[in-house]
């Protein structure tokens, strides 16, 4: 009660003659800044849609569902890049989420106090590495390692199993959706783990201490106290990472293979929306080709928007079921 009264007072301070004008000006500036982002976003989306109109008019829905990307014949379908983008991002999250939460938990609960600072700084430095460095590392060091050690093993042990076998078949060339997904996973770990670490350390000590007093193990504290308490912030962090993975260009271009082939196998090369645009834009010399690439950019907008909307709805539903909000 006291807190709301205080914040009301902050929001509507007693008007003073000299300060009123400046205050209004400040309000306008902040409002303008906030609206500017929204206008910028809408403007970008609209101009991408406008640039891609030729592709959408020519192919209609087939632009989204078509698998052909035949420049010579002038046939463009975005299904392969969309599929490649979603699959690599999904692999990235499958790797990054558990590792990031593990890192955050270790740093807030388990690590000796003197080591927390240096490890946290090291992880945040990972986020500062330019993505092209990850791409070069992926191509020169990680892809040959995948080709000679990991992929032959996967094909030998999982390649003939029903259902999942199709995911791990094909020649071990080291470049493909699995390699790209793993590199992306490493790239998004610092984003998710640094947010997770901060929200974990914001959990009131009293809650954790109570759990310890009731005889909880570390796992029980994590799964019944820390994670439920920080759920919305953690989901937010995961989607921050997902947003980064969806749009990542350079690192993916290096290790994904840039081939417009649709393959069930994760070991085979594919393409992503961002990589296709980066690779092909300079040589797109027909109007339809250029328009198709801009339309691809618009679809990346749409994919990101849909994913974020699903995240928000998910969050809303969880919170409603629990009948509370954090």
């Amino acid at each position, binding site marked *: 009660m006291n807190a709301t009264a205080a914040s009301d007072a902050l929001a509507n301070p007693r008007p003073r003659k000299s300060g009123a004008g400046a205050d209004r000006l400040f309000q306008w500036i902040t409002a303008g800044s906030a609206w500017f982002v929204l206008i910028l976003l809408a403007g970008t989306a609209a101009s991408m849609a406008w640039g891609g109109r030729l592709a959408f008019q020519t192919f209609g829905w087939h632009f989204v569902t078509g698998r052909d990307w035949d420049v*010579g014949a002038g046939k463009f379908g975005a299904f392969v890049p969309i599929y490649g983008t979603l699959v690599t991002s999904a692999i990235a999250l499958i790797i990054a989420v558990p590792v990031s939460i593990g890192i955050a938990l270790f740093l807030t609960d388990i690590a000796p106090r003197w080591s927390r600072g240096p490890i946290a700084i090291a992880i945040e430095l990972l986020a500062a590495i330019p993505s092209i460095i990850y791409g070069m590392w992926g191509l020169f060091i990680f*892809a040959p390692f995948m080709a000679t050690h990991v992929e032959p093993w996967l094909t030998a042990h999982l390649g003939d199993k029903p259902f999942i076998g199709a995911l791990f078949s094909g*020649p071990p060339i080291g*470049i493909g959706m699995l390699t790209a997904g793993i590199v992306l996973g490493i790239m998004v770990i610092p984003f998710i783990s640094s947010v997770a670490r901060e929200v974990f350390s914001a959990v009131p000590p009293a809650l954790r201490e109570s759990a310890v007093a009731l005889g909880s193990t570390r796992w029980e504290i994590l799964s019944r106290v820390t994670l439920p308490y920080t759920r919305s912030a953690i989901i937010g962090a995961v989607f921050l990472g997902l947003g980064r993975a969806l749009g990542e260009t350079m690192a993916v271009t290096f290790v994904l293979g*840039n081939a417009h082939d649709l393959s069930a196998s994760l070991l085979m090369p594919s393409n992503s929306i961002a990589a296709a645009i980066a690779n*092909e834009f300079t*040589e797109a*010399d027909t109007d339809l080709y250029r328009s198709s690439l801009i339309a691809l950019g618009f679809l990346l907008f749409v994919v990101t928007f849909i994913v974020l909307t699903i995240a928000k709805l998910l969050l809303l539903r969880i919170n409603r079921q629990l009948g509370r909000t954090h």
Partner: protein
Amino acid sequence: MKKISLALPLVALVAACGSNSGGQQGGQGAAGVTGAGSTFVYPVLSAWAADYRKQGGADINYQSIGSGGGIAQVKAGTVDFGATDQPLASDDLAKSNLAQFPIVVGGIVPVVNVAGIPAGKLKLTGALLADIYAGKVKNWNDPAIVQLNPGVNLPGAAIAVVHRSDGSGTTFNFTHYLSQVSPTWKSGPGEGKTVNWAAGVGGKGNEGVAAYVKQLPNSLGYVEYAYVMQNKMAYALLQNSAGNFVAPSAAAFAAAAQTADWSHAQDFNLVMTNASGAQAYPIAASTFILLPKQPKDKAKSQSAIAFFKYALEKGTAQANKLDYVPLPGPLVQQIETYIGANIK
């Protein structure tokens, strides 16, 4: 502390703006000639430009944005000249009122990365190369490859095929060659700056393909000759139309340039692949310069022509040093007559 961190980016921004506008002024100065296009010709063109400036010539500002981009820019009139690895047809040139001539010759070379196979050991034919890129020949120990290479220890591994991911004049010349030697390739993927690849991974630019071939075991790719030399890659021998297996070399590209019938090619619209000489390399390629026939800025067009004359006549040593092949003497004369007749 806060003040410093705020001020620093501002200083950088101001500095960036300053240098940026300075650069633009330099490019738009009276003597500055701008060009754009082919990435293949960029190393030799920039070396020529540096030599030319040292001798008191005009500033040549060349942006290697790719052949397609160069064609678009010179058609739009935003640059003084364009450079492309794929010659334009005469009617296309007439429509845009452009003149076209070759400037330098190079070659496109199949390179492999197979353990135990050094440069020049593996023999390939054009038809076999087409079958590999079409995904019909999948393994290194395929009978078709073994038959050509008795005594070479070929692994049972799959061939990791590498092609270009971006549109490219290199790809155009390579697929033009495959279309000539393989009817199934001609009716299938065909020729173009990008085609519908049936197999393989795509690298961006010559350097991207070179990097993929070096990194991927059991791979096969195609790159410009200069990249083979610089990266010391294992090239394969290629059978020419006379039936000889030839290694890529300046002499073999020159042999192809000499047997090509330039005098009957209108606007030099000629692709040199599958040339007929006994020692001719089968995938020789040239880069073409595009200049407007009625330039808006005559002074700039004249300084561009002076530069290309310098390059054709005096740039031969520099071209050789960078693993390109200068054009043969009679062709240079033919080009200079063509320029005099066509560009006002």
